[in-house]
């Protein structure tokens, strides 16, 4: 079989494809990356301490809990649903973990697992209730928001605040790997991406399928590799690679693989795109929904445990405040549609970076909270407006 003779997508077609995706309502990650560059540029002009290894390392650790919660939110949004309980599940999961570890003297690993499973069970319950009684998901999870916060207060008991001393739990947000480890990991990741690109091209050629333009694919690979190495270099010149960041990236890569390359992930998109079509195609729509809500609960609890590790304490206010809205806003700012079926798990990372950068940059400028809320609100409004306009374009096209 002649690999060289494999047909190739024309350059024109390649350049049109992103435009077609946007036209079909999938805005992708370009707007958010452009926005992130703009935000970083502005903050660095206003305060040269912003783009320093010290501050960027702090930023990556600051966004991990929001990013983890947002990863679950992306999956729920892909279904066209919403989960308003993730803030309370964040708090309850960390409270369960803290009580198991500190008050009951259980070692770190089982205590963390206990906290995570609490989130999983709650998510299963939400999913079951939502599918069994056909109540809108935002109402079921709104009830959850209240009820699980109450349970969090009950679990924490009269002391209210539990300080965490266990070094293994503290390490989740406190451990940094050496620069050498970081460089080795970056090299392995880039090698895997390179091999994957050529294996995929080879398989497409063997199957006689059209190829994307090689130069563009290699260009994309080089850009991604450059981003990975620059990030590693920045982190290496400060304290090293944070374990918290690797945990976040590990979950994002795993869920990206699940959503894009497995039947389960394909079915999530199908249910979000057209639930009736999915049902007629034999997909267990309710099974998918329950599984996704269970994942959202799990990720919320994991986010809570990372947050507790960063603050070294769990208290009444853990998971309250901005967590819920920041996690939803991050997913939407990252390019995941509120209307279901469009977006990727990576938007949890890019969106969290935007929100984290705004908070971090304004803190560096000693700007008070009032301005921070207004700017975050404006960015969220811009993101949902892009989403809404893309959707209108789709509807105008009669689709």
């Amino acid at each position: 079989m002649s690999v060289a003779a494999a047909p190739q997508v024309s350059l024109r077609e390649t350049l049109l494809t992103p435009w077609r995706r946007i036209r079909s309502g999938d805005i992708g990650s370009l707007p958010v990356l452009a926005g992130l560059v703009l935000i970083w540029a502005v903050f660095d002009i206003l305060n040269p301490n912003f783009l320093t290894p010290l501050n960027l390392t702090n930023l990556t650790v600051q966004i991990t809990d929001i990013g983890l919660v947002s990863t679950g939110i992306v999956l729920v949004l892909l279904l066209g649903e919403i989960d308003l309980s993730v803030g309370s599940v964040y708090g309850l999961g960390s409270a369960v973990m803290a009580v198991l570890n500190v008050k009951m003297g259980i070692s770190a690993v089982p205590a963390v697992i206990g906290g995570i499973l609490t989130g999983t069970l709650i998510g299963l319950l939400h999913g079951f209730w939502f599918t069994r009684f056909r109540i809108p998901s935002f109402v079921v999870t709104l009830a959850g928001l209240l009820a699980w916060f109450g349970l969090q207060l009950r679990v924490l008991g009269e002391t209210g605040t539990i300080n965490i001393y266990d070094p293994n739990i503290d390490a989740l947000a406190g451990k940094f790997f050496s620069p050498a480890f970081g460089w080795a990991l970056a090299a392995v990741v880039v090698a895997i991406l390179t091999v994957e690109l050529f294996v995929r091209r080879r398989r497409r050629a063997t199957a006689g399928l059209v190829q994307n333009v090689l130069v563009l694919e290699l260009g994309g690979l080089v850009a991604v590799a450059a981003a990975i190495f620059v990030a590693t270099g920045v982190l290496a010149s400060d304290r090293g690679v944070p374990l918290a960041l690797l945990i976040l990236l590990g979950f994002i890569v795993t869920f990206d693989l699940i959503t894009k390359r497995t039947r389960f992930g394909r079915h999530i998109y199908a249910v979000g795109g057209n639930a009736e079509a999915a049902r007629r195609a034999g997909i267990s729509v309710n099974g998918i929904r329950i599984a996704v809500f269970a994942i959202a609960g799990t990720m919320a609890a994991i986010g809570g445990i990372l947050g507790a590790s960063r603050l070294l304490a769990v208290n009444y206010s853990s998971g309250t405040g901005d967590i819920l809205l920041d996690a939803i806003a991050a997913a939407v700012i990252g390019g995941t549609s509120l209307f279901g079926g469009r977006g990727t798990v990576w938007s949890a990372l890019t969106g969290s970076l935007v929100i984290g950068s705004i908070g971090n940059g304004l803190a560096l400028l000693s700007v008070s909270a009032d301005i921070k809320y207004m700017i975050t609100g404006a960015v969220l409004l811009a993101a949902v407006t892009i989403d809404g306009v893309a959707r209108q374009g789709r509807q105008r096209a009669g689709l």
Partner: protein
Amino acid sequence: MSETGGWPAGHPPSVPAPVPTERQPILELRSISKHFGAVQALSSVDFEVYPAEVVALVGDNGAGKSTLVKTMAGINIPDSGEIWFEGKHVAIHGPREPAALGISTVYQDLALCDNLDVVANLYLGREEIQPPVPLLSEERMEHRAREVLTSLDVKIPSVRNPVAALSGGQRQSVAVARSVMWKAKVVMLDEPTAALGVQQTKQVLELVLRLRNQGLGVILISHNLANVFEVADRIVVLRLGRRVGTFDRSKMSEEAVVAAITGAEFGKFQPQA
């Protein structure tokens, strides 16, 4: 036999239904009756489709077309009557059984996921994985999708574009391709041209003829008699839950078909109760 030639079948003949040629119907309904409450939706209706044939099912609103289609799709279970497939009496209790026999339906809403690409829609619910890892076998699916679309002469700019980016005719073609790519022998198309422009209607009608030429039995439900006359080998007319006329291609005339649909008398129709 009065089964053809523009004259009414009158009361349904006793089993077996008369066969106009030597061929055996691939799907045959005998004396199907169905009522919903007080409404008799179908009264002893016979219906048959042969391999490599386009049979149009026409009738006014409420004539029983949808009920008959849903009976063949296994969504309605008839009160009485028999369904035969490839010469065998088959029991149909739900939508899975027709699907397993190779009877598929393309409904008017097409049931496509706009956010997914053409390959994903063709394989919806039947995605192939590459053991031992449970990852989707994208190359195999894309290869087969191209084969199917090429065999039906369906032209799509890129099978990796989301369906939302396609025209109405292309979307209809994708829905039809999906219905026939899993060993279908009979395909029912419910108003396939209802929302389409002239050029796209032509594409879809050509696709209908290609399905017939590949040996499928095609059942075309349409209000558009011009389309029906263009592609149908036979026309079966329902009115008020009865089969009131069958027209061969050679003996079709628009006046006679319209008269059968509306019940307008020109002499030889039996009046309905």
